[in-house]
């Protein structure tokens, strides 16, 4: 064994942990694509590509900002509000594990990066069908650093929430409450779609909605199941709870749908899968499977209420990111403060198991993270809005974002299309053979 001391730091790496974290990272990356499918199904056909592209753009923008600056601000050092610049542009992020971890630092960086990307994509749900694509990308870049990285530092990177005892297993603070309350602010600043409240604006493909939600659930096994940062007990608990809570949320939604409209709806089912996954996100590795099932049932009620009530307001928070992520994340963060069990998580007990302080630590997060996400997003969008228009013209909104910003359609017929060839120099040369 003495001969191996030369590579002692690398010897900390556990191949099983690393393998699972590599797989988890890929699963979480897929969630951004799944979200694109889910979101694009929920909007009108003429905006479905643009909606998907907002998620796709998060892959480019979030991936770059995270590598350059976001990761460092989130995970370098344990400053109260933000981390340092020590990992600027991946400086010092190599194959050696971070302190107390068993996976290469690079894998940790990549895993956390997929969370940043997904969260940026989540916020787009508030502003689809009318926000300018360019303004969105500027917003996405700044938001990923100024809001996501800061909240990630608070909850995961040794910031003040973590320091005062807030438990957040897989991102109830930065991902769920961060995106949900940022979405509310974004919807207020960008404003409602011009047809909102006047016309029925319906999902154009409800099969995409179910498919996207199903794939999100699948990806969530990496999201929650990887948040133990290895193939360990916490990951197993979170993984299993990621089956149980959404299952209970799904069933509860069926019952609520039946009571309210006498029919079990598919878009509702898709929604409840996401609600269930979000509910268990902060609590996954901290609460027992039994309590996870209770959370799935009870946690669905406040979310369902916001889903039903929000469209009756003037606030066009279009795809209900607040209800699905903000409210569910808020509920999960608090619930774990009640029912966490040291026998399951080895870390802390909740209020029902004798530690009321844990609940108050959770309550501090539930109060401050939404406030920061809302206020910072509101100011950020006001500033961007002073520099460039945030939304498309009425004409462009009527035509649809796909043609206006991408020069493509989700469902082009090709009828009457005329091929432009280099030789034709823009002149009509060949009629489309179709």
């Amino acid at each position, binding site marked *: 064994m003495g001969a191996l001391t030369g590579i002692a730091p690398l010897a900390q790496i556990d191949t099983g942990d690393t393998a699972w974290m590599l797989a988890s990272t890929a699963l979480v990356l897929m969630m951004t694509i799944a979200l694109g499918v889910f979101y694009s199904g929920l909007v009108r056909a003429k905006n479905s590509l643009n909606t998907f592209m907002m998620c796709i753009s998060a892959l480019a923008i979030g991936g770059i900002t995270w590598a350059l600056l976001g990761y460092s601000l989130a995970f370098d050092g344990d400053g109260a509000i933000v981390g340092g610049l020590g990992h600027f542009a991946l400086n010092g992020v190599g194959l050696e594990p971070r302190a107390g971890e068993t996976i290469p630092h690079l894998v940790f960086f990549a895993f956390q990066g997929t969370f940043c990307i997904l969260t940026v994509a989540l916020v787009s749900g508030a502003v689809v069908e009318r926000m300018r694509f360019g303004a969105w990308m500027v917003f996405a870049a700044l938001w990923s650093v100024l809001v996501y990285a800061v909240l990630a530092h608070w909850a995961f990177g040794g910031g003040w929430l973590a320091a005062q005892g807030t438990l957040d297993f897989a991102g109830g603070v930065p991902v769920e409450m961060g995106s949900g309350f940022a979405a509310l602010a974004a919807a207020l600043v960008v404003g409602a779609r011009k*047809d909102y409240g*006047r*016309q029925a604006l319906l999902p154009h493909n409800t099969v995409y909605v179910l498919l996207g939600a199903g794939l999100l659930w699948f990806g969530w096994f990496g999201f929650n199941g990887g948040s133990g940062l290895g193939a360990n007990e916490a990951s197993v608990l979170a993984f299993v709870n990621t089956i149980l809570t959404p299952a209970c949320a799904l069933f509860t939604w069926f019952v609520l749908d039946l009571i309210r409209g006498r029919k079990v709806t598919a878009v509702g089912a898709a929604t409840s899968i996401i609600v269930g996954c979000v509910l268990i996100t902060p609590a996954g590795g901290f609460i027992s499977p039994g309590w996870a099932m209770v959370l799935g049932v009870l946690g669905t009620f406040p979310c369902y209420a916001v889903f039903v009530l929000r469209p009756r307001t003037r606030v066009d928070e279009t795809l209900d990111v607040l209800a699905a992520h903000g409210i569910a994340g808020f509920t999960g963060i608090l619930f774990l403060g009640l029912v966490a069990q040291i026998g399951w998580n080895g870390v802390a007990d909740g209020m029902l198991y004798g530690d009321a302080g844990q609940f108050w630590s959770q309550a501090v997060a539930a109060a401050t993270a939404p406030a920061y996400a809302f206020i910072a997003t509101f100011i950020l969008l006001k500033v961007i809005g002073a520099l460039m228009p945030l939304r498309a013209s009425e*004409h462009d909104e*009527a*035509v649809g974002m796909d*043609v206006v910003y991408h*020069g*493509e*359609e989700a469902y*082009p*017929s*090709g*009828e*009457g*299309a*005329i*091929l*432009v060839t280099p030789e034709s120099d823009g002149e*009509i040369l060949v009629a*489309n053979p179709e």
Partner: protein
Amino acid sequence: MKLVIGIVRPEKANDVLEALYRAEVRGVSLSRVQGHGGELERVETYRGTTVKMGLSEKVRFEVAVSDAFASTAVEALAAGARTGEVGDGKVFVVPLEQAVRIRTGESDEAAVTPVVK
């Protein structure tokens, strides 16, 4: 009797329906069509393939009315569909020889008069 045909922008279809409703014109059919007027052709690019889309999506309204109602229907269609930009569409009025309500066998004026409950 007249058949009033309106070819309008799809995004104005709801406004047209509302205008017709306010003008108390009730029976209406609509279909999705593609057409070409004086609008600029939009260019779309799918990787290496660039095309000019010569046809635009439109919605075609058909309203069969008694002569007295024709001008009301035309005005409602035009008012509901207008944005002021090229591509707002057209309204055509053509004479209608005969109309039959299938359920009752009523014909002509009676057939195009809405059933009042």
